[in-house]
């Protein structure tokens, strides 16, 4: 399937990439310390970090994948957003962010060192760093596949070109460059997807026309509901409400959104505690409406293209709509949006990687006590090495695409035990440093083993979706049991060292960093957070 792009489209694409690089160069001039490079100087307003927070998760795999799910499962795909993301984002903002931000840590592993010990930090830093490189490689490979299919570029060329662009703006401008580009990318993606959705809806006769035609499609009436048929599993996903609520809505989603450093890093770069808390909550609002430009076009594609899911892969839903509905010009914007989202996904992985590698592996365990400039340089070198490893992974992925799918599914399990360790560590001050380490290790291994035994066929969970619910749930449970058991036989940290890191032990020496205007209602994390939850409930009511 080839898109008919012309000179006009390429001009629009070129303008975007010139802007991206210009942002990198401009951000470079403002970098004087490692704090500038790794955390954008902790000076960004909440709307910027909030939009970057959404964007970091709005990779093209996500967009194409959710449209594919929309075509395959229909309206219930919104569970990935309304119960599978928004509640966890609100929880992160209201409950967890004060601990992260006020402890002045630079990363999630660093928080683990402060709360537990260096071993826990290293364990998490190493798994995170490896995961980020592999995921960046998978991203790069997926991007190259799309470029090859849509524009006819040879795979190696697109891998190298895209990697070089991401590399240049992150090495130049560090995290501020990544974040500014994510904000820009957010709007460009919408500029491509909104016309696509509007034209698609016009073509199928509006919402009522779409619904009528979905009823007559392979999905049938079930494709138009979110919770109906959830008590019996009689729905397109064959899922039970318990799996959706506890598996997707709790273990997987809280694990991903509250502990994934590639996300949390965006909030840590906010200008004060209130802005950091608002970051995921501001992000929750666009997140609520993103299904309108992903899931909805997926359903439109289902009724417009009869061969979707048969001879055409579901993943082609958005590209097919682009080909048939968009004229040259808007087509160029949509292609730019897709390219931008691939790169932002990869940039989030790489900027997370370089921070954790420099801060939590190199500086914390290998070469300590050097001056600040030294670590900025290490960060830049880590970026180059990270991208090079990503390119390597992309080429491996090109040879063994299945292995990469497995790896990605596997890493989604790793967040569940990390979340267990966090939540116990935050609310149970007795939890000991070694309980942190052994709990996390046991949980991670449990995730690994349960996934491998599912893949090898020793255990049968039915669908892939159920396997990930159960695998993550098991990893969570193992982490809890081991953490509690080890706590009972090891010594705890003195309370003085836990101040500001545990619920109920506030840091006495922390100064109030509120800015003028933070007290206004529209800057209240609790009010806006509850608002997002209410809105999610109302939206579910619209399409029950």
């Amino acid at each position: 399937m080839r898109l008919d792009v012309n000179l006009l489209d390429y001009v629009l694409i070129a303008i975007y990439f010139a802007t991206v690089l210009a942002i990198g160069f401009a951000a470079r001039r403002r970098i004087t310390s490692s704090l500038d490079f790794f955390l954008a100087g902790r000076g960004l307003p909440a709307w910027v970090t909030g939009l970057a927070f959404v964007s970091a998760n709005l990779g093209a795999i996500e967009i194409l994948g959710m449209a594919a799910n929309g075509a395959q499962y229909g309206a219930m795909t919104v569970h990935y957003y309304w119960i599978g993301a928004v509640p966890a984002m609100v929880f992160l903002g209201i409950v967890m962010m004060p601990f992260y931000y006020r402890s002045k840590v630079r990363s999630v592993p660093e928080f683990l060192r402060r709360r537990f010990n260096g071993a826990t930090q290293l364990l998490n830093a190493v798994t995170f760093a490896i995961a980020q490189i592999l995921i960046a490689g998978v991203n790069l490979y997926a991007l190259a596949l799309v470029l090859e299919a849509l524009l006819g570029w040879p795979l190696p060329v697109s891998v190298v070109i895209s990697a070089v662009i991401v590399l240049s703006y992150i090495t130049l401008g560090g995290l501020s460059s990544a974040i500014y580009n994510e904000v820009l990318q957010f709007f460009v993606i919408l500029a491509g997807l909104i016309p696509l959705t509007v034209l698609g809806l016009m073509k199928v006769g509006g919402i009522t026309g779409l619904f009528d035609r979905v009823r007559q499609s392979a999905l049938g009436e079930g494709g138009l509901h979110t919770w109906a048929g959830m008590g019996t599993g009689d729905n397109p996903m064959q899922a039970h409400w318990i799996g959706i609520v506890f598996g997707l809505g709790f273990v997987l989603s809280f694990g991903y959104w509250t502990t994934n450093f590639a996300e949390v890093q965006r909030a840590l770069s906010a200008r004060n505690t209130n802005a950091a808390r608002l970051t995921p909550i501001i992000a929750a609002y666009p997140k609520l409406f993103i299904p309108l430009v992903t899931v909805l076009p997926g359903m439109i594609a289902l009724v417009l293209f009869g061969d979707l899911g048969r001879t055409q892969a579901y993943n082609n839903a958005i590209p097919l709509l682009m080909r048939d509905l968009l004229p040259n010009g808007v087509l160029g914007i949509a292609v730019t949006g897709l390219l931008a989202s691939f790169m932002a996904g990869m940039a989030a992985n790489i900027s997370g990687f370089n921070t954790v590698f420099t801060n939590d592996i190199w500086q914390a365990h290998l070469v300590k006590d050097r001056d600040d400039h030294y670590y900025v340089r290490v960060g830049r070198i880590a970026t180059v090495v990270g991208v090079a490893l990503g390119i390597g992974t992309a080429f491996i992925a090109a040879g063994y695409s299945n292995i990469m799918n497995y790896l990605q599914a596997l890493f989604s399990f790793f967040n569940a035990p990390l979340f267990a360790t966090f939540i116990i560590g935050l609310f149970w001050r007795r939890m000991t440093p070694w309980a942190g380490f052994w709990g996390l290790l046991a949980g991670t291994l449990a995730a690994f083993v349960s996934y491998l035994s599912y893949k090898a066929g020793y255990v049968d969970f039915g669908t892939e979706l159920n396997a990930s619910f159960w695998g993550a749930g098991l990893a969570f449970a193992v982490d809890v049991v081991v953490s509690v058991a080890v706590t009972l036989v090891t010594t705890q940290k003195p309370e003085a060292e836990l101040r500001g890191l545990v619920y109920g032990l506030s840091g006495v020496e922390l100064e109030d960093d509120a800015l003028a205007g933070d007290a206004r209602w529209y800057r209240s994390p609790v009010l806006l957070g509850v608002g997002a939850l209410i809105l999610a409930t109302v939206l579910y009511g619209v399409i029950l």
Partner: protein
Amino acid sequence: MSDIRLVIGGLFLVYGVILIIAGVLGSVVNLWTGLVMAVFGGTFVLWARLRRL
């Protein structure tokens, strides 16, 4: 480039103008998208001008 709002606004203004021209010469879809993008870009530039950092 001290303000990302100017960059977003500027890019959308440029995109908007190009699409409007392409729209006048050809597709009405380009025209409408261009108009919306130009208005959006203009709003961001205006916001950056009115409430400076």
